[in-house]
């Protein structure tokens, strides 16, 4: 039921070694790229394949690469965004830990496509093991001559650096990541200029997610039609979904885009963790995406269908909640996260997330006042769309959807000074 393309060799413990990876075809696409393709041909293939950014925004990767100005005399940079920290999302870690050469190869091809000779992978600081795996993979690639000077004797030079973060979710946002990479505090930048024009060290820069880049070698090896056989017309390819929460078999599953959510939750995930408790809500694309209700469980997991349902595919992190979950409690946990991770640059986000956490905490403790829900809605309205980066929007969307879908539960908390549903999940 899974369609393992990126995860093809994920269960082979030797895949982290370059000889095993090469035996499985690693770096073939990289060699083909250097020997047979021009940068614009690589961009065209990725564009035609329709690869969309897997970090959350879903922007077409090839189109993004095409924004790099060819005539610029400045160096061009590629940055692989491995600062995975959106709650619910744990897919990139699997690729970094189990198939690092796929990531290196994808980065190398992307670097060539945009004329970059120094590429970075920004790994979140907490990911110590993935960081070491990537360091080792890159060192092995240098030893084999797949990186460094005159790669494959083609005259192309490419260096690669693994850079670690320091535990800031905001650094997954591309402009904050670039500031962080420059040694500054990871605060977002106003766009324009966009990174493709003025990014790292004020030079043209492309920032792509790990999974996005890992998708590239397959396209070079097998062609656009091969890639498009998977997924839907507008959302081609496979996608790794991180399934967590109240399901029997949580995990990372690679499936074709367009696969119904029910297949992921019930068939792959084994259904609800406790059959005495019913499905209550699903967060479909990482903690920042609006929730879905049980009657939406057959919705196809693709960018368009989720957008039409009022949510987002995001990073593909599906969080399942059963009827033991208090929505005010869940909102408080999520709001605490965004308050903690707000970089503080924009007043609506810095002040608003703190205010939201206080209000939601008050309601959860049974100290809510009449009008609190309306106040929360008003604060959300004053954060949404009023910040430099999307963290403010991310903080607001799950709360807005929680109130929209479960307003009676929020009101009950205020009126009765207690929760109508929550029974503690038993930690055995």
């Amino acid at each position, binding site marked *: 039921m899974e369609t393992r393309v990126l995860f093809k060799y994920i269960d082979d413990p030797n895949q982290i070694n370059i000889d095993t990876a090469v035996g499985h075809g690693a770096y073939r696409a990289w060699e083909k790229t250097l020997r047979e393709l021009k940068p614009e041909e690589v961009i065209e293939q990725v564009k035609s394949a329709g690869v969309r950014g897997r970090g959350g925004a879903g922007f077409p990767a090839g189109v993004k690469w095409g924004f790099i100005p060819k005539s610029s005399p400045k160096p061009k940079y590629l940055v692989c965004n491995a600062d995975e920290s959106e709650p619910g999302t744990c897919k*990139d870690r699997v690729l970094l830990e189990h198939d690092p050469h796929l990531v290196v190869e994808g980065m190398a091809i992307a670097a060539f496509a945009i004329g970059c000779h120094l590429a970075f992978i920004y790994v979140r*600081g*907490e990911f110590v093991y993935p960081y070491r795996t990537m360091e080792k993979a890159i060192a092995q690639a240098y030893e084999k001559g797949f990186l460094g000077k005159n790669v494959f004797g083609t005259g192309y030079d490419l260096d690669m650096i693994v850079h670690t973060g320091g*535990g800031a979710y905001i650094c997954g946002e591309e402009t904050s990541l670039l500031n962080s990479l420059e*040694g500054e505090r990871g605060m977002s930048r106003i766009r324009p200029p966009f990174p493709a024009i003025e990014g790292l060290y004020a030079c043209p820069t492309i920032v792509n997610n790990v999974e996005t880049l890992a998708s590239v070698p397959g396209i070079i090896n097998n062609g656009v039609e091969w890639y498009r056989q998977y997924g839907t017309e507008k959302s081609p390819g496979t996608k790794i979904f991180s399934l967590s929460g109240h399901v029997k078999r*949580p995990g990372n599953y690679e499936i074709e885009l367009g696969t119904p959510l029910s297949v992921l939750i019930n068939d792959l995930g084994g259904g609800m963790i406790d059959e005495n408790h019913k499905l209550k809500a699903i967060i479909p694309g990482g903690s920042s995406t609006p929730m879905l209700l049980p009657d939406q469980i057959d919705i196809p997991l693709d960018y368009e269908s989720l957008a039409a349902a009022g949510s987002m595919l995001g990073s593909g992190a599906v969080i399942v909640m059963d009827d033991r979950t208090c929505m005010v409690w869940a909102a408080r946990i999520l709001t605490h996260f965004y308050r903690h*991770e707000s970089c503080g640059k924009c007043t609506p986000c810095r002040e608003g997330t703190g205010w939201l956490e206080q209000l939601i905490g008050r309601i959860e403790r049974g100290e809510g006042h009449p009008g609190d829900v309306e106040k929360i809605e008003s604060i959300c309205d004053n954060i949404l769309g009023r910040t430099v980066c999307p963290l403010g929007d991310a903080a607001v969307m799950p709360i807005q959807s929680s109130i929209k879908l479960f307003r009676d539960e929020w009101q009950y908390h205020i009126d009765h000074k207690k929760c109508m549903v929550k029974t503690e999940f038993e930690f055995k």
Partner: protein
Amino acid sequence: MILTDDSIRLIKEKMGRYPRRKSAILPALTVAYFQLGYLSPEIYEEISEIIQIPKVEIAEAASFYTMFPKEPVGKYLIQVCHNISCALLGAEALIDYLQAKLGIKKGETTADGLFTLITVECLGSCASAPMMQINDRYYENLTREKVDRILEELRSQA
């Protein structure tokens, strides 16, 4: 110097790879953190000398990143993820259990200096919840029994 020769060599090596020296700040802080388990003004001073960036800029960056404790911690830094996926599977009860088991509150260190307990935001291990990180290692799919075993093992290694 607090930093060891190895740490200094590593910082210099990393610094040499970047087009701009300032990019080496986070890697340098990481090296210091791995050596000491925390950061301090003395460390900023040493890093400042090595990478030739004013100390204030080192401190400015360091204070932004929550992964680095700014004061000494126990031999084992226990970081429990308490975000949504872990919370749904009992992270709050796990924290209570650890507090009772270690006899400390969140943010405290045991009297023997072995364990410091803190909570952190999502560690990217959502499908293996509940989980915690101790120093640089992940411990996933936790149960009370597993927690007991892990603490015992660490105590016996100390």
